[in-house]
């Protein structure tokens, strides 16, 4: 019981600041303090007329989409390789793909900056995507590893023994088993990219993503507009997480349903 109270107190600590941001984004007065002066949508109205913000959002969405796509392709092939490797091979893949998660964004940011400078690459949307993939891949691999550990290689062997070609085995056995986790984790890659700030600040050049825009607003003044943007960003992240969860669940349900169907006696 005591443990339950402690756990919920810690969760309250995690959630309270976010709820307060949401609350004040609807505040009728610019003051960020109590007493609460009533609800209003004025900050949101002000946001929707802001062309700079709109372009930052579109930029971030584009970058996040490309990051998720590249991460999905690289992650999918790496996962398939992981299944085929022994202990040493798996260790090598992990060492290369998971390490960036254990480094501050600062390190990843400046090392990519020197790479781009040294190779004469102009900083652009492309360099931001490249950087975001470096930090999104570890998250995908960590999520995939937990799932792949449960993967039974004898399923693939059984399919091959029953005469399925390599392509058939992949399409009918391997892919359906790993696809839900792959898609769910590339949605997380989207979320990571959409929110990334530290690494971006080094490789963005003159590009302005949404976090860069929020940063410039935060630095200039404390305005309730930041609350409204933050609230939208927060709900967007929640929507992404929910989407990732729903996809994982729906796929699992359909897999189970499919198996039940096969168990039914044929007419």
């Amino acid at each position, binding site marked *: 019981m005591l443990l339950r109270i402690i756990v919920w107190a810690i969760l309250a600590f995690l959630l309270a600041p976010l709820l307060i*941001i949401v609350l004040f984004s609807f505040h009728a007065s610019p003051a960020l303090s*109590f007493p609460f002066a009533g609800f209003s949508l004025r900050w949101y109205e002000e946001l929707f007329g802001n062309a700079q913000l709109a372009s930052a959002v579109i930029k971030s969405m584009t970058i996040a989409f490309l990051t998720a796509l590249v991460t999905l392709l690289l992650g999918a092939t790496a996962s398939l390789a992981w299944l085929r490797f022994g202990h040493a091979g798996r260790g090598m893949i992990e060492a*290369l793909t998971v390490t960036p998660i254990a*480094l501050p964004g600062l390190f990843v940011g400046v090392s990519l900056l020197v790479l781009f400078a040294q190779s004469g690459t102009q900083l652009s949307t492309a360099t931001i995507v490249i950087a975001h993939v470096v930090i999104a891949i570890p998250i995908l691999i960590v999520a995939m590893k937990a799932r792949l550990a449960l993967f039974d290689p004898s399923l693939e062997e059984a399919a091959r023994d029953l005469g399925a070609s390599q392509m058939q085995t992949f399409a009918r056995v391997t892919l359906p088993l790993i696809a839900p986790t792959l898609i769910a984790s590339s949605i997380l890659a989207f979320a990571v990219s959409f929110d990334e700030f530290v690494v971006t600040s080094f490789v963005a050049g003159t590009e302005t993503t949404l976090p860069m825009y929020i940063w410039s607003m935060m630095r200039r003044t404390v305005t309730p507009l930041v609350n409204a943007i933050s609230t939208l960003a927060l709900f967007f992240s929640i929507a992404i997480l929910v989407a990732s969860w729903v996809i994982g669940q729906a796929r699992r349900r359909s897999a189970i349903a499919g198996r039940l169907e096969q168990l039914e006696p044929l007419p």
Partner: protein
Amino acid sequence: MSLSRTRTGALLATPAILYMLVFFVVPSLILFAYSFWSSASYRIVPDFQFENYLGSLASPVFWKVTFNAIRIGLFTAAITLILSIPVGYYLVYVSRSQTILYLILITWFSSYLVRIYAWRTLLGTSGVLNTVLLQFGVIDHPVSAFLFSPFAVTITLVHIYLPFCILLVVSSLSEIKRDLVDAARDLGTSSIGAFFKVIAPNAANGLVGAFMLTFILVAGDYVTPQMLGGSSGQTTGLLIADQFRKTGNWPLGAAQAFLMFGVSIILYVVITVLGRATGLIVKRRAKTEREI
């Protein structure tokens, strides 16, 4: 079959490995090479000298901000780990609550900058904390010391890195067989006793890992101290970032980044050695089951 399996595997692994080599390993090596170069009147000259390292090590400013970063890092990582353990224990042994897990994931994926901004709003002189305390008569005038203080920096960093640390703790606790805990409980140990006698020794490596990872990320986080720490928010991370943005002495910044890296490694070694000497960390047994 086995050979072609490995060959297909190698082929499949190539894109990801190549990507990480080009965009992670090579850049790190270039950065390392840069740390020996020199900078003269805003131009970077290839060179091989140790002045960037020696100069930094001899500089009181460097040590001051580095001690600050280490202090913030150790303090924050300790609090974060202490808070993560009950949540991790609850999620692994008491209830596999999906609700709690998703609430944690929501905070993990909620915007980094938004959370910094939230704490600024909460702790400011006209902020929520001050107005609430004033109304309840706890204080009679707004306290400006909440913001721009080590306190503000630590509480915000704990808030930012706690979800990540909880997930690390959950994964390290999940490796301990439930039967061990149940056996201890059946023999009459309290749940706190079971934690210290059964779980902690078995999970020590994982918990130290979680602590170190949190430390490295916190000590390298320069945005939070900058936004919430005021004059107390000068850390090595900010010093390094400024070399790459303002001053333009990239080789010096590169050397300081590797010094920071070295400090983290030394700290990890010290903690592990201390843990082994005091018997808190047991040497990990050879992974027998998995090998077979």
